[in-house]
């Protein structure tokens, strides 16, 4: 075990996977000589050379589109979108092509494609850099959508994503790059896609979250523990595939649920979670499920973002509201 921040964990995982499998190629804007604008791909270019680490022209569309051809050629592309908001430029390729390569060729080709992208707020970025699009991505059949909340998971889930024969959108919390630090297993470390993690035990209420909101939820849990409240935190880790059993188990145990996400509320993935809770565990519910989320406006400019992102106060207030229900 070493303590790493999330960026270091991601970088380590990329190094390991490229060393392990020579079919792995990395492509994206500024991923080569510059090591990525956040340094996620630091050292790869020097180590694996320009044939395997490619500074692409400035086009998310062609980055995503080229991964399809690379995968057909039998390679294992790991592409970076510099910021998830610019995946919109590639949506016709991601949703229309990457996600369906297997389906439209009925299994002839494995779309063993990973698309990494930072997202989420809290670091005063300009427009579109912080947008949370996971709900939209989750509605695209064929994609897996993974969103780690810890450095250890970032390492282990990224390795699984790269080895997975299906396309994975690997979403990295911008604020967690340097802000999240934890013990990361050395050497090979695989976390399977589709298994949630109990980040905090508890049985009064469960907060269901992913990515950086897990951190916020844990702080709320810790804070309220001082008041004698036992707040479980379920870290989904992957939205697709979804660990439906873990959700059911947590809801059945706690009976009360808050879902916390950074995205625009309407149409966000939180709705899917509520629907899942209702489908799996309706009769266990002791109170309505409450969503805490962004608002129904675009991710805002810097001065407003702290209001936009659900913070400890907002989540704690929701928790109290749900606990108050008789």
């Amino acid at each position, binding site marked *: 075990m070493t303590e790493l921040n999330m960026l270091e964990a991601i970088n380590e995982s990329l190094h390991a996977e490229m060393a392990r499998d020579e079919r792995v190629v990395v492509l994206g804007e500024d991923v080569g000589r510059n090591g990525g604008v956040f340094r996620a791909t630091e050292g790869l270019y020097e180590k694996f050379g320009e044939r395997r680490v490619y500074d692409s022209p400035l*086009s998310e569309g062609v980055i995503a*589109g080229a991964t399809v051809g690379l995968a057909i050629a039998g390679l294992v592309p790991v592409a970076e979108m510099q910021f998830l908001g610019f995946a919109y430029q590639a949506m016709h390729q991601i949703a229309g092509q990457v996600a369906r390569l297997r389906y439209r060729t009925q299994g002839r080709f494995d779309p063993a494609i990973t698309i990494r992208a930072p997202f989420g707020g809290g670091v005063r970025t300009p427009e579109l850099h912080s947008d949370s699009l996971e709900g939209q991505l989750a509605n695209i059949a064929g994609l897996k959508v993974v969103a780690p909340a810890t450095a250890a998971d970032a390492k282990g889930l990224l390795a699984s994503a790269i080895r*997975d024969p299906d396309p994975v959108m690997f979403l990295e919390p911008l604020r967690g790059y340097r802000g999240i630090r934890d013990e990361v297993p050395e050497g090979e470390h695989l976390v399977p896609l589709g298994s949630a993690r109990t980040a905090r035990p508890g049985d009064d209420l469960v907060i269901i979250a992913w990515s950086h909101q897990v951190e916020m939820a844990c702080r709320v849990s810790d804070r309220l523990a001082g008041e004698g409240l036992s707040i479980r935190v379920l870290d989904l880790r992957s939205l697709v595939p979804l660990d439906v059993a873990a959700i059911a188990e947590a809801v059945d145990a706690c009976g009360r649920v808050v879902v916390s996400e950074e995205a625009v509320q309407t149409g966000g993935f939180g709705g899917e979670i509520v629907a899942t809770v209702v489908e799996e565990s309706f009769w266990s519910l002791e109170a309505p499920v409450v969503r805490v989320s962004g608002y129904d406006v675009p991710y805002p400019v810097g001065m407003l973002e702290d209001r936009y992102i659900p913070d400890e106060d907002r989540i704690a207030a929701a928790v109290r509201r749900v606990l108050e229900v008789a």
Partner: protein
Amino acid sequence: MTRPSDGQRRQMLVDMVSARTQSQRMWNLQRQGQIGTVAPIDGHEATIVAAAHALDPAHDWVVPQYREPLALRRYGPEVLEQFLLYNIGHPAGGHIPAPIRVLPNQISLATQLPHAVGLAWGMTLQDDPGVVLAFFGDGSSSQGDFYEAGNLAGVLKAPVIFLCVNNQWAISTPVHLQTAAESFAAKAAAFGIPGVKVDGNDVDAVYEAVHGARERARSGLGATLIEAALYRLGAHTTADDPTRYVPAEDLAAARRNDPIAILRSRLEAEGLWDAATQSEVESAALTAVDAAHERARTMPLAPDALLDHCVSEDSPRLARQRLALLAEVEGTR
């Protein structure tokens, strides 16, 4: 100048006549309600066939748009067979079996071009000596994907050939509303690659251009953009009524330039073709397309085929959906 041999030219005419014969049969089958929408091939035969003949099916990939499959006989009978499956809406139609180096039709226009570049690039990374030829239409050239792919290919010197089939129309939109560029070939300047415009009704010209581009690609010099100018002699598809927008006199002029008539009269003059050959080829083509249709019609379909091949392994949710679907199919619910 690399010209096709007599034998090649004769084979090209076989492929062209077959393609048109089959396309027209499919048109009729669609009209009878037996198969799905058809995009007729009439007028495109010389370009597609000559391009295919300039390639080596064992090494070179073809990345089609959607009008090409019938003219890709050179790549094996499976292309036709899968095309009929595809046309009737059977999922297996998307699976052109390995090792045939043909991708399935692309409906989302121009998205195939970045794939072609990625594939060509991937081949060079693995020292595969083949090249990739991607078809696209004049209309599709207006998509960002075309330009982004061309630009990437230029930077990478990827062994890819972009073959723009300029049939003068994108459904009802004529080329002068599609672009003000001098030609589609002229767009190559944006990528730093050569652009060549050829007469798409002339198999020799297309063959030579593709052959040259292939040599160039194989020797590491990179991509080429070829524009094959021809005329769409039929409707856009069975769902279209071109009399609403195609000027009758333009169409009449184009018909006088029919690529099949041109090659046939040349080969007849050279003693390489005659009426008997023509009818032999036509009837073999009909037999083949009817057999492919019959095969498609009777191809089995698993009750839960809908859910297959989306992901490598069912997630718990998908597994549950599969059970529900099967229960529904069996009416056992």
